[in-house]
């Protein structure tokens, strides 16, 4: 600790970085404390009664949340496992997969959910196609497909959105050079013992891989539990998930009901933490016990049909994304599109005219995204520059904890703080909320980059007579340009997709593409809804493409071979 502090104050690292670092430390500590302690203080201050909460059936919303989040996480993990096992055969597909995954990741959850709704709802495009080709159904079926009470559609949306994420993280782990070789060797060795490729995967690679992927899986679980906008767009309405129920109560006029919302979100956070603990501690290595229990069956033919199906899976998911994008585009340009027409009866650009009229919404979204991403990156770059490498894992852990905490919880505290300084309903409060939302993602993407950067480059620059700033501007940061741009793109996408911070801290006065898309989706006019959803979709997409281009330009092969750094097997 003493050495670390001494390191911080050594001449080469003093003024700018250490000051900002100190500021960041204070800020985040303050906000964390405020967030955790604030609501309790308010609670003690106003001493509301728990009468309302006691009367409400809270078991059902919590159970529903557990079910939807748990099922979608488990499905996504299972599918990831299968797909990764399959792509072991064909590593040349990895390039295509990686770039396709990037596109999928840049898609906001809400736009995807709305578009899927337009596809599979009884009045949706899928049923129109069926109606045209088979003459049934004549009228929209009275089936509860979207907003179904058990959340199956919600699970589907979460699954299709989280699968690319887990795949992407899995691929990233896979592509680490030392990892890939050792896993491949073990997998091949297992096959020489008579295990089929699939069993060999389960024996040799899966336990190790999933031990590394456990924190991303926890993040997926936490998101599924805490999500509000997607659940409102496509999840159950009359008896909603716990997050939606808590959000509804928080927005009520009655203070007692508001505090019921707080208590419910406490319960929700407790469940998330419990699940996270179980998943983190789970003996993933036990996955290898299953194939071990079965003796290798040398002569059993490998069933290829389902392997082929798995191989097609990524392409099918990608196709789904493309179909939904196209559907949204057509919908946004339609005027009168009754059931069971497959194409719109009349077209109009009126929906886009409405969007264009509200250009200030786009400007607000852009300004929030760009500034919050820039601020987060500056803060974290300053932190990583000044902090000793030993602290990186701590920072990583903090970011994960923040990510796992449901937004409902920490937004409570930020809102109370905003009320205290009379910032509620202003752009500044929303900006702070967005910075806090983007920060963990920036940490998780910048951290490994900083950890794996070889300091000998900056040392060389120093011996050539270049000072602190020149070392960074001309050597270090250009070398990290790829990951830096990627982190910026991710931060941008995260900010654009934020719903709760904007609504809660902005008091409804700050409108972004996401809030508009959600409010329009219940407003009934599908073409306007589609226009907003598409706008929300396209913006991070464009930024993602642009940043990928820039990242590709700066893609040097490192000259120093022995890369040291933190083993980020968190």
């Amino acid at each position, binding site marked *: 600790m003493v050495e670390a502090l001494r390191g911080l104050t050594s001449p080469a690292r003093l003024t700018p970085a250490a000051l900002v670092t100190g500021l960041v430390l204070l800020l985040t500590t303050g906000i964390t404390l405020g967030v955790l302690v604030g609501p309790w203080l308010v609670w003690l201050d106003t001493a509301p009664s728990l009468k309302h909460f006691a009367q409400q059936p809270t078991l059902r919303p919590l159970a529903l949340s557990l079910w939807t989040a748990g099922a979608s996480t488990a499905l996504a993990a299972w599918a990831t496992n299968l797909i990764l096992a399959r792509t072991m055969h064909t590593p040349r597909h990895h390039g295509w997969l990686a770039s396709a995954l990037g596109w999928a990741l840049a898609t906001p959850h809400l736009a995807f959910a709305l578009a899927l709704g337009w596809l599979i709802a009884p009045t949706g495009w899928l049923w129109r196609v069926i109606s045209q080709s088979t003459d049934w159904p004549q009228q929209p079926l009275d089936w509860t497909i979207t907003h179904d009470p058990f959340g199956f559609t919600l699970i589907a949306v979460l699954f299709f959105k989280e699968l690319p994420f887990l795949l992407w993280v899995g691929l990233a782990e896979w592509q680490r050079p030392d990892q890939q070789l050792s896993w491949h060797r073990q997998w091949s060795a297992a096959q020489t013992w008579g295990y089929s490729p699939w069993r060999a995967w389960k024996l040799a690679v899966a336990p190790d891989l999933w031990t590394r992927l456990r924190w991303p899986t926890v993040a997926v679980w936490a998101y599924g539990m805490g999500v509000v906008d997607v659940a409102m767009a496509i999840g159950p309405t*009359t008896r909603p998930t716990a997050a939606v129920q808590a959000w509804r109560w928080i*927005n009520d006029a009655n203070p007692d009901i508001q505090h019921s919302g707080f208590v419910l979100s406490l319960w929700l956070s407790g469940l998330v933490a419990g699940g996270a603990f179980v998943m983190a501690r789970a003996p993933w290595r036990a996955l290898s016990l299953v194939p071990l229990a079965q003796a290798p069956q040398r002569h059993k033919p490998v069933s290829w049909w389902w392997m082929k199906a798995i191989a097609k899976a990524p392409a099918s998911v990608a196709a789904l994304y493309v179909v939904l994008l196209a559907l949204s585009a057509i919908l946004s340009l339609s005027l009168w599109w009754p*059931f069971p027409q497959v194409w719109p009866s009349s077209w109009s650009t009126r929906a886009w005219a409405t969007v264009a009229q509200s250009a200030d919404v786009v400007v607000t979204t852009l300004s929030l995204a760009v500034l919050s991403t820039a601020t987060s990156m500056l803060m974290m770059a300053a932190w990583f520059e000044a902090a000793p490498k030993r602290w990186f894992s701590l920072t990583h852990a903090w970011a994960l904890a923040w990510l796992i905490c449901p937004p409902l919880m920490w937004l409570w505290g930020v809102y109370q703080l905003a009320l205290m300084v009379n910032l509620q309903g202003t752009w500044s409060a929303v900006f702070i909320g967005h910075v806090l939302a983007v920060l963990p993602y920036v940490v998780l993407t910048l951290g490994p980059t900083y950890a794996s950067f070889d300091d000998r480059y900056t040392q060389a620059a120093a011996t050539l007579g270049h000072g602190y700033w020149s070392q960074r501007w001309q050597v270090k940061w250009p070398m990290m340009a790829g990951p830096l741009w990627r982190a910026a793109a991710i931060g941008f996408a995260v900010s654009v997709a934020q719903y709760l911070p904007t609504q809660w801290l902005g008091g409804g006065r700050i409108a972004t593409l996401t809030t508009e898309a959600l409010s329009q989706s219940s407003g*009934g006019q599908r073409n306007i809804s589609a226009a907003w959803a598409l706008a929300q979709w396209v913006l991070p997409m464009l930024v993602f493409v642009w940043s990928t281009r820039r990242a590709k330009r700066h893609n040097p092969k490192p000259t120093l071979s022995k890369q040291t750094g933190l083993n980020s097997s968190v």
Partner: protein
Amino acid sequence: MKQPPSQTRTSAQLGSRRLFLQRSLALATVPFGAHALAAPTPWAQTLEQSRGQTVYFNAWGGSDRINAYIQWAAQSLKRSQQINLVHVKISDMAQTVARIQQELARGNTDGTVDMLWINGENFVQLKRAQGLWGPFTQNLPHMRWVDVVGKPTTTIDFGEPTDGLEAPWGMAQLSFFADERRLPTAPKNTAEWLSLAKAQPGQLSYPQPPDFHGTTWLKQWLLQLAPDTQALYKPWTAAAFERATQPLWQYLDALHPFLWRQGRQFPQSAAQMRELVADQALLIGVTFNPNEASSEIAAGRLPPTVRTFQMEGGTIGNTHFLAIPANARAPQAAQVVIDFLLSPEAQAHKADIRVWGDPTVLDLNALSPADRAAFASPDAPGGLQSPQPALAEPHASWVQPLEDAWSRRYAA
């Protein structure tokens, strides 16, 4: 959201029209009420002070046409008065009411809301909590054109006198619309609704309370089914509630299995219902604006065979209002905005079915012939064929218990 309540015209009130007139005029001339934050200034001064100010107008944003109208108003105000009118789109007025009360509790004088589109129990709640700025309607030059005599609900809101704390904006009456081709004969009463539902299951529904359309649908059915409607106009008591709602719950229990999604899921708004009608998933849509179907046909979003109808005996009608919170940052500018919205020009534009189609609160006979001509709109298909009388809104205190009871029974 609790939408602006509708004024009703019962036979009892028709007889005491003069009393209402006298009372409202008296109230309008009371410059200072218990609301000590009010300090009326001469109108020219108000206009001067309000130049360049920004007014945050919290209003329901669920209808594209209404949003477009508010944009038009904002543009006009920017041109003529240099006032920035910002439409804060909300889905539930109760949230805004909550926020205002929170701010007032903190002694906040710099509120986030300058103007509200409000009525009914929300108005009553704010008024009782001293949360409204004013009285101010007596300051507005255009207030004198409002038809307080012919439309008594412009001064009495869900049984509560407005006391000059809110200005009437438009008239509303619960109406229904359906495609003639799919529904040749419209149901006229609750019994016919039930038989229609049984004949064509899965084709009827109503918006989920507490959406204000849904709540009003519920109130309408309550009025039709309650044994003693007089009790509904008196303040709520648990015993009266039990007695009055028992037939309603029986009816709904019988009706729900034949509704869309078997009554387990409800459309979230009237606008969503309209989309479902357009998609032929539902037979009948709900609206507060008797001209809505005409507007939608004109905009090409409904087929021209859609017709509007009301229930025999009358449907609930009311006025919706504009008010200013007590801690508004720009009350002067808010007054100017409200005055503009009461002008014949703005009211005529609002009543135009190509724009919004919302009926006006002004007394057309009191206007100059030129102004009156602006209200003449061509006959449009889809309009209301046989208008029914507007029924009085039940007392404001009945709304919350009704919504809670419905939620407990059907949404818990």
